[in-house]
């Protein structure tokens, strides 16, 4: 890679973005705060009005009560000795005008402002007389009035006297406004403070992200080691996932490097042999020797072709593995296509049989022998025909699966001594008792020497070759199989073949377990799997 490229990551602008978390969060909270402030403002306003009215109503009432105390009826004459305090107490509101009126039982004014407004609801009857408070316009201003009843005894004309005291609303409105102002100022200050704290908090919370970003930007392209800078708990999962991702990437890169090195090494040997044989043939004058050299050249070229095919297959599987385009596929069709590709046409033809077992305890049907694109039912015993055309559905990648089957069968043909007995491919349905899931078991049995238990696990590593392996393999085939099975979430098992007649043959058995899944729609449009494009060098 060009060193300049490390500083400018490839097209970072192509990242799809959602609105910034900070802005979304702060905007929502801001809206909430504004709403809360408005609500609190109205609450404070109603409270302030009530509080101011309450306190000044007490003043009015006190004034009216002290006036009521000064009313007397002496020999039929009303007497009022208006207390100085009655009006002085109202002067607590220094800017407000005040009015009073004392009304006798006959409804006539004893003293005071004769034209004060009556309460809007009218005066209550004497029985239900209790202090009243109301607002009324008077002399061009809104005035708050209190009316206090007082029963005056004293012979003729005695009865209920009403004392009405009113005051303009300047002071109480000012008090209410003051309460509202203070409350609102406090609320706004509090909200602003909280909002600032929150903003700082969000900034702080998001700072590790910025640090993370800086750290990742500062790295050279090849650095895939885990993130070192500390992150808050909320980001731990993300960073862990990132670390895991980078670790896998790093492993993959390492594997790729190893693979390239190994593949180069593998290709060099047959090529060197090819060149040596060709040169030998050129140096030889003897036609018989030349022919031998040519045959050796052909052998080496064939081996090289197989190696190349495997390498390409591996690369395509690797590529496919990253794409993971799953569709409903029929394993039986794929197997038949694989057999058609793998089983050699030249004599002596090895015997490869494909078996179908619908359930665990059902009988096996022979579906095809060697290779058949169409099942020749006539060639089979009539009673062995399954009652319907069988299919083994699952969700998978047709190309990858086909490559895996090809490699398995190819492996069995290469190392499984086909001259000693047939290679059997069995597709059987199994039910996992633990999970209740159905899956397919694709088993390939050969009649070869088998693999010792100690080596079973190693067999599926890249470029690993069994001890009893025939010459001319790169050790790629089984690695491809394993990758495909893992990519499909399946499992791979290897072991000894069940001896067919008891204990006579020691063979090797590889069994792929794959999740079965019946496609939702099985109409004409639901192509299980497209016929694969043939890859490789013919």
């Amino acid at each position: 890679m060009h060193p300049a490229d490390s500083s400018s990551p490839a097209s970072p602008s192509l990242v799809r973005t959602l609105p910034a978390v900070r802005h979304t969060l702060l905007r929502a909270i801001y809206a909430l705060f504004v709403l809360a402030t408005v609500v609190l403002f109205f609450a404070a306003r109603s409270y302030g009005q009530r509080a101011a009215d309450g306190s000044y109503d007490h003043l009015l009432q006190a004034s009216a009560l002290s006036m009521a105390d000064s009313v007397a009826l002496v020999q039929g004459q009303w007497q009022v000795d208006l207390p100085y305090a009655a009006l002085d107490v109202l002067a607590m509101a220094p800017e407000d005008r005040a009015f009073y009126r004392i009304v006798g039982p006959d409804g006539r004014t004893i003293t005071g402002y004769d034209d004060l407004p009556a309460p809007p609801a009218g005066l209550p009857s004497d029985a239900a007389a209790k202090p009243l408070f109301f607002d009324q316009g008077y002399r061009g201003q809104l005035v708050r009035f209190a009316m206090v009843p007082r029963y005056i005894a004293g012979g003729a004309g005695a009865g209920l006297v009403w004392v009405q005291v009113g005051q303009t609303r300047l002071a109480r409105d000012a008090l209410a406004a003051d309460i509202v102002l203070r409350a609102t100022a406090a609320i706004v200050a509090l909200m602003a403070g909280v909002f600032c704290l929150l903003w700082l908090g969000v900034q702080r919370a998001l700072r590790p992200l910025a640090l993370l970003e800086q750290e990742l930007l500062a790295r050279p392209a090849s650095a895939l080691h885990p993130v070192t800078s500390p992150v808050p708990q909320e980001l731990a999962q993300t960073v862990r996932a990132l670390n895991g991702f980078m670790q896998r990437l790093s492993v993959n890169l390492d594997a790729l490097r190893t693979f390239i090195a190994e593949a180069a090494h593998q290709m060099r040997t047959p090529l060197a042999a090819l060149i040596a044989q060709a040169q030998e043939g050129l140096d030889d004058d003897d036609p018989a020797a030349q022919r031998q050299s040519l045959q050796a050249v052909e052998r080496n070229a064939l081996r090289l072709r197989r190696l190349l095919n495997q390498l390409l297959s591996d690369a395509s599987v690797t590529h496919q593995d990253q794409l993971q385009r799953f569709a409903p596929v029929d394993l039986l069709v794929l197997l038949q296509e694989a057999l058609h590709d793998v089983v050699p046409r030249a004599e002596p033809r090895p015997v490869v049989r494909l078996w179908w077992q619908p359930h665990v305890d059902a009988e096996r049907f022979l579906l095809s022998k060697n290779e058949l694109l169409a099942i020749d039912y006539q060639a089979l015993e009539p009673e062995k025909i399954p009652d319907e055309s069988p299919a083994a559905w699952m969700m998978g990648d047709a190309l990858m699966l086909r490559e895996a089957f090809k490699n398995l069968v190819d492996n069995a043909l290469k190392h499984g001594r086909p001259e000693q007995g047939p290679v059997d491919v069995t597709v059987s349905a199994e039910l996992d008792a633990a999970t209740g899931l159905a899956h397919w078991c694709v088993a390939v049995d050969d009649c070869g020497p088998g693999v010792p238990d100690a080596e079973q696990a190693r067999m599926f590593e890249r470029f690993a070759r069994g001890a009893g392996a025939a010459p001319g393999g790169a050790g790629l085939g089984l690695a491809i199989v394993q990758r495909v099975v893992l990519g499909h979430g399946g499992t791979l098992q290897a072991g000894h073949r069940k001896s067919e007649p008891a204990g006579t043959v020691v063979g090797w058995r590889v069994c792929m377990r794959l999740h079965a899944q019946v496609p939702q729609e099985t109409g004409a449009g639901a192509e299980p799997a497209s016929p694969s494009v043939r890859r490789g060098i013919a």
Partner: protein
Amino acid sequence: MNKIDLRPQRSLESTAPAASRRRTLALLGGVALAASPWCRSVTAEASMAAPASVTRFAAPEREEAVLRIDSSTDTVLFAPAIRDFQRLHPSVTVWYADRQSLDMHARALAFAAAARSGSALGRPEIAVPEDAPDLIISSSPDLQTQLANDGLAWGHQSPQTRELPEGAHWRREVFTLGADAVVMAYNPRLLPVAQVPRTRGQLLALLRQPGSPLQGRIGMYDATRSGLGYLLATQDSRFDSTASVLLAAMGEAGVRLGDHIEPLLDRLEKGELALVYNVPASYPLARMDAGASLRVVVPEDYTLLTTRVALIPTTAPHPEKARPFLDYLLSPQGQAVLARDTRLLPVRQAVAAARDGRALALPGRVGAASALSAASAEVAPGSSAWRLLSPGLGLLAYLDPLKRQRFLQAWATSVQPRK
């Protein structure tokens, strides 16, 4: 300056016939609640009471505006302030009418009633006569407060009024222009300085002692016939629980009552009286400056500070002309002129003294002897003995007609000499 030309053509004794004055004063009860329908008809005739002396102060330059003032202060005392104002506003002609405060109050109510009926007819311009004042300056803070409380005064907001202390104004409609300490004036020839009472308690003792020099030689306002006298009597009864005892003692001593202060002071100068109780200090101080052998004593138990208050009535033909004059009177320059010529205590000093109990210097050119100290040296500073009668709601209580009737009955009963 030729003050003689400005002296109104009447003696210091009121020229109004006693009968008309009595009628005017009898109206006071009605005046108190003139807003009430049952007394409106009565107040209307009050505007025809006591003719006033009206003086025209022509504008020094080309006349562009006219300002009419109703005032209960002698023209000769107020002239310097008007002249000073005209130096600042040379295009204003000032008409100054010297009236009784009760008369001014009744006129204001009558004009307001006329304006109401005029606007009811849709012709407010014919309702108010052309001599309606733009500014009313009165020595009755209670009556002025009542006008404002009845909604008959314009508010006045200006830099000058905004900085007034609390107590110097009410609702920025009624403004205190200055204060006048209420003192006892005595004739030192008849009352030796050693015997001069410094408190009301000492006055009571002096009245009661046998062979008292005050026997038959004490005078005071007739509360039943003088607005200011009534105000001072009611305030005495507020602040002094033994006020009725003092009244009774005065009655026993054969107190001489006057409906105006000047005749009382005349008799004091002549030696017919030895002491006059409850005198606004500006009157005796003016006489002392003119060489009269009078002395004043400031009561040390408490001293009332009566006030001159101004308001712009809602019936003013040119209220906008009254505002600059009011601002001038409240400005430091105007206050200085008022203190020098009308011997009113500057309003800010009076308010501060009443609030903090500070000493006040009597205005005028009396000299150091006239320094007023309400509190004697033993009284701790801060315990105020000044009682400022600033405009406010409290003053309205004694304007209630029933209360007034009761009070005056009791007052008259107290001062009735028991035979």
